[in-house]
């Protein structure tokens, strides 16, 4: 494996797969490339689209599950026999996974407001996620969220991040201490701060869409996590 990770100029390479079933997968690709340019000059990244079972390769270092419609994505995964292989891939300790919006729903063990008949999920994180927590498109919004994780704050160079929430979910509850809250949102109309990003092991999810902004903090965080995992 080590040899294939080395490029001829001695550059190291990260292989990243983006689930390209439906949603903003190109936006993630563009954001990753931009984040990479301000990451580490000795590391290059290779981005691949995941559309088939055969695209879920063990030598991928990271996978992004982008936003889109969670029902559309989950039914596609199920019909194409991709749920189990993807779950196995995510559970390997060498792999880093990031889910945005629909990705957060797919990664959660418990999901509220599912479609009639329910929808299958990857069931990885010990969280209770509510679909369309804030409402329909009319209630979609932009707002600054508070970063709680020290590493994220360092990466961002500040304590907050401008989040874009599109018919977004939110984490209503976390069930085990392994789940670490990464970011929260304060709203006047909510009693407590709302959990909008969390991490469990090498898996993290965000309710908002960093790929729709020009701030690459979260993409950098993703790359840093891959580096940490690869070095360990």
């Amino acid at each position, binding site marked *: 494996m080590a040899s294939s990770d080395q490029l001829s100029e001695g550059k190291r390479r990260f292989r990243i797969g983006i689930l*390209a*079933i*439906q*949603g*903003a*997968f*190109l*936006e993630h690709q563009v954001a990753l490339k931009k984040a990479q340019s301000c990451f580490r000059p000795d590391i290059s990244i290779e981005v691949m689209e995941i*559309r088939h079972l055969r695209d879920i390769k063990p030598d991928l270092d990271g996978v992004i599950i982008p*936003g*889109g*419609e969670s*029902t*559309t994505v989950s*039914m*596609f995964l199920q*019909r194409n026999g991709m749920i189990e292989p993807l779950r196995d891939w995510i559970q390997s300790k060498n792999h880093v996974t990031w889910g945005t*919006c629909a990705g957060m729903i797919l990664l959660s063990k418990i999901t509220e*407001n*599912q*479609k*009639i*008949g329910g929808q299958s999920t990857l069931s990885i994180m010990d969280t209770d996620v509510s*679909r*369309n927590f804030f409402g*329909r*498109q*009319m*209630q*979609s*919004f*932009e*707002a*600054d969220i*508070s970063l709680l994780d020290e590493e994220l704050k360092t990466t961002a160079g500040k*304590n*907050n991040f401008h989040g*874009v*929430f*599109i*018919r977004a979910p939110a984490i209503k509850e976390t069930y085990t201490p392994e789940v670490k809250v990464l970011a929260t*949102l*304060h*709203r*006047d*109309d909510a009693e407590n*701060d709302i959990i909008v990003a969390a991490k469990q092991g090498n898996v993290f999810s965000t309710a908002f*869409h960093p790929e*729709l902004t020009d701030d690459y903090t979260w993409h950098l965080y993703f790359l840093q996590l891959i580096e940490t995992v690869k070095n360990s």
Partner: protein
Amino acid sequence: MNMTDTVRSGCVFEAINLLHPNETGTKIETGTFKVKMGFAQMAKGGIIMDVTTPEEARIAEEAGACAVMALERVPADIRRDGGVARMTDPQKIKDIINAVTIPVMAKARIGHFAEAQILQSLGVDMIDESEVLTTADEENHINKHAFQVPFVCGARDLGEALRRISEGAAMIRTKGEAGTGDVAEAVRHARTIKKQIKMAQVMDTIEIYNYAKELRVSVDLLQKTAQLGRLPVVNFAAGGIATPADVSLMMQLGVDGVFVGSGIFKSDNPPKRALAMAQAVTHYKDPKILADLSSGLGEAMFGIPHNKTNENELIINRDNSNICSATFGRPNKM
């Protein structure tokens, strides 16, 4: 993008952020152009299906549609029945909203901002200011910046697309020829937009000014489009798409996703066709999978070939703007 900040309507919540007392507070902004465009971006790589009942909406959701368009009649029936086509009965839209968890869109007549206000109050996720319905204002389109809800508009060429965007459209679709089952017009419109963007890209500054005048659009927006090499908002194909192969054709021509109107519920086996077409959007580059998806779907909608439709009957001709003579919109008709 300066458009992002132009007009905002509706409520802006002001909140005090206790975690950061030095800052003025968390501002929750709804209905911004970024949020509107973000909604369209989440539909990318997806298929949006026309439905007329909650049952059809459920079929679309189960098939994997990323949104549904709630209609009184599908375009093929509008075409057959004639008469004035208007906004859908609000009760029907509410029933469809309650039946599914995916986004629900609805159509308003061109220029009919009152219909759009009603649709917005129902909580639809996007409004289609559509030429499929009877035009309400022959001169003007809706000022879409004044709304909290995002809009999608039809276009046959770059000029039309950019004018709709400057009016506030967060998404563009090709007009195609709705209700015919003939993809020819959608292909023409997608290719025209692509060709005109390429032309703008090779022009120098002086030429761009003249071209903007010709297209009747702002120079800034045209320049931005040329720089991006694509429309500055999400662009779907619509109008006459009836088979998985049609989906693949349009996706390969560079659109971000597809609308399917009459193509599904006017076919032999709607659930099966809906499923095949939803899968086709993701697998558009893979002819082998498309062959499997296209097998045994039953009859596609019977359709009316575009060149057999009476010129005066063309839905797209209801749009009164004369840009076709100013651009390459419909070169064969010039």
